[in-house]
């Protein structure tokens, strides 16, 4: 075992890129360095704690819809949600750039993507950050089932996948509101959040889960600050027993879908689906079936204990092979800023993410962002990555006196000999830094 190499891999593969000094810190025990982050993650930044809770933002939406319909929503988007989005995105990126627990931070981002809510649906623009802060971040160290319940019950998910106005066809609410069933949330829960598209469910299962989920909605805004939260509307809940994946669910109000979600979380297809996603994220674009099987087994044996699952990743030999994954634009931007020791994020950081094609919480669909190389690298985007590295190097105030050791602070032994040679021969320290940030090794993790 090469501990120097492992320390570099710990920071760039499992973490979000090395900040100055980190590879040194990790070198005595790379696995222990990572495991400690999971056990005791550094607290979130103060900026994050100062952001508005979702229920307040959702309440404003409810009021806008009620009083002024679409023009009201358009106004809210412009005056409140877009500025909120920028604040949230700057804070999220800043947290990723500055945290000393970047393995934990990656873990948060991984699960946030698994339960994607995206601003591609305009009202979600100002809300996605709150969803991640409230439903995902506090729950990634617990059990999968609790994370699932937190995500599906969160008002922003309810809004995003249209469950707030999904009414049981035979309910008073459906008659009163002239509405009916919407199966969007149920379908994505089965296809994306739990079983996976090949998980063995059919259209009848989708409909059945959708019926069980009727009534999972939001509390109305009433001026007392109790609006915009999860609320079970019994009058919208379709009565009757249901079957899902061969299991019978007696009508138990809100408990019916809750039990269904618990069973889905424990289903072997869910274990396999999650294992596949984890292996693709932490091992390679094409992980071996053995790796998937082993992670799937851990998921099942620990009853979906996410902390155990994170530690199991560290025991997979293949996960320590260098640079198998291409960085997504978000990973590139964050690791670059970490590499130069930036002390936060700002709108320029967001603009870089826009240019490179990955604005926070703007994934194209509920499936989230692609997690394989070919979706992210094209000639045009490649040049853009170099432009970005050069632009960052341009802005760094203090140039290193020894560019090669500076580069080693960012990637340790992961740079190849030719790259190190080129860095040492650069025409200026600034170009040396630009080379280190735009080198092919730095595009990978």
């Amino acid at each position: 075992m090469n501990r120097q190499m492992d320390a570099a891999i710990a920071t760039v593969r499992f973490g979000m890129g090395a900040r100055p000094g980190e590879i040194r810190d990790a070198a005595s025990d790379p696995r222990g360095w990572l495991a400690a982050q999971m056990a005791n993650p550094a607290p979130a930044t103060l900026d994050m704690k100062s952001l508005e809770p979702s229920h307040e933002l959702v309440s404003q939406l409810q009021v806008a819809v009620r009083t002024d319909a679409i023009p009201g929503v358009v106004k809210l988007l412009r005056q409140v949600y877009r500025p909120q989005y920028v604040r949230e995105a700057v804070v999220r990126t800043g947290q990723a750039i500055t945290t000393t627990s970047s393995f934990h931070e990656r873990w948060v981002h991984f699960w946030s993507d698994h339960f994607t809510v995206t601003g591609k649906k305009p009202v979600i623009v100002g809300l996605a950050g709150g969803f991640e802060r409230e439903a995902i971040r506090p729950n990634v160290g617990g059990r999968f089932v609790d994370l699932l319940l937190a995500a599906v019950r969160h008002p922003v998910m309810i809004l995003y996948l249209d469950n707030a106005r999904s009414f049981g066809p035979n309910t008073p609410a459906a008659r009163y509101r002239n509405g009916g069933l919407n199966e969007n949330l149920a379908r994505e829960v089965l296809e994306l959040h739990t079983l996976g598209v090949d998980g063995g469910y059919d259209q009848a299962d989708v409909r059945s889960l959708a019926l069980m989920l009727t009534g999972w909605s939001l509390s109305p805004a009433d001026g007392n600050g109790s609006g915009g939260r999860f609320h079970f509307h019994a009058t919208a809940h379709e009565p009757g027993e249901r079957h899902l994946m061969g299991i019978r669910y007696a009508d138990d109000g809100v408990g019916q879908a809750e039990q269904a979600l618990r069973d889905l979380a424990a289903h072997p297809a869910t274990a396999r689906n999650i294992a596949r996603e984890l292996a693709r994220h932490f091992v390679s674009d094409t992980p071996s079936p053995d790796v998937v099987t082993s992670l799937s087994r851990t998921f099942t044996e620990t009853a979906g204990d996410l902390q155990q699952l994170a530690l199991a990743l560290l025991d997979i030999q293949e996960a320590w092979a260098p640079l198998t994954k291409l960085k997504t634009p978000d990973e590139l931007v964050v690791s670059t800023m970490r590499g130069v020791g930036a002390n936060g994020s700002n709108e320029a950081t967001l603009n870089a993410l826009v240019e490179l094609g990955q604005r926070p919480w703007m994934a194209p669909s509920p499936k989230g962002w692609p997690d394989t190389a070919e979706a992210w690298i094209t000639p045009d985007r490649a040049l853009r990555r170099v432009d970005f590295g050069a632009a960052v190097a341009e802005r760094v105030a203090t140039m290193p006196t020894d560019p090669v050791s500076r580069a080693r602070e960012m990637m340790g032994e992961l740079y190849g000999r030719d790259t190190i040679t080129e860095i040492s021969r650069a025409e200026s320290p600034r170009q040396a830094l630009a080379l280190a940030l735009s080198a092919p090794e730095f595009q990978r993790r």
Partner: protein
Amino acid sequence: MKHRSFEISRRRLLQFSGATALASVSGQSLAAPASDPRFLMIILRGGVDGLTMLPPTGDPDLAGIRGQMNEFPTIPLDGFFSLHGAMPTMGELWEQQQLIGFHAISTPYQDRSHFDAQNVLENGLAHPDGSADGWLNRALALRPDSARRGLSVGAGTPLIMRGAAPVGSWAPSQLPVAEPTLVDRLIPLWAKDPLLARMLPQGRELQAMTGGMGGDTSSGRMAGLLDQVGQLMARVDGPRIVAMDSDGWDMHGTLLFHMNRLSADLDQGIARLRSALGESWSQTAVLIVSEFGRTVEPNGTGGADHGIGGSALLLGGAVRGGRVIADWPGLRPGDRIAARDLRPTADLRGVIAAALADHLSYSPTEIGETILPGFTTANRLPELFHRML
């Protein structure tokens, strides 16, 4: 399968095709033949609602089934079908016989997952798995110079353009361009990484082509993007086979509001594309498709859920338009799949194969063996394009 009296739309198209052929002798054929054809594929991600984009306003069941969701302005086409009223350019193209609508159409995929459906649309097979490359890439691979001729517009490369053939990719940029000497130093380093090896030199070629192109594209909206795509495709050395995405068509709620917004943007984009293409418009075909359609019945939230049968538009100077091609299945519960989805009566591959064979001049062997494996080119829809000379 039922055939109501609505099959007039198909019969009518047969009458039309005679008229169109005449028109092409008297007028259209005087324009430059498609000797240098351009093909643009726009994928509306999310499953566009065909009953709103190309509503069958002559179907007596439509208004009753859709209720308030049927109350929006339309542009009448052939007496049975209409266009959404936010698309005046498309209406104009219809008048000029440069637009064909397709309805009750789908890929071979007969289920309701976005992602599987998009895979089938893009991999050109009959099932979601089994191919890591896209059919446009396989088509490009059969001709030289794919890196120039093929272009993917926007962030990332969609599956349809991924594969062995190197293709271009482009999105407007606001970042300052790095020093050329830095890129010079990086090219040999990147060359050692197989995935990255060809990227920087190809990026430079593309940069040379698009150099200095600015414009109002920061929002990524279709109108601005299509203007620039038109400028690229108009160039003598520009791309010829282009794919781009438009997001946001998965309208489970407030469908009419979103359709109005996105259709208008798309329509303005087509207007700007046409004007940017100039003379080359006569050699251009644009195929606008989506991975599937939406349920016939509105859902409970002013939208519609995922449904199998959908619609598509084919337009451009190279298109023999002025008709809607549909073997209309009807909208009543018994006409639908599982009493919910519009029943597809046509295979979208029939349109794609026609574009490949009759616009881009691929042979039946190339199409059936490589581009759309298993599809028989003879089964393509006939006479969608002006004959190339």
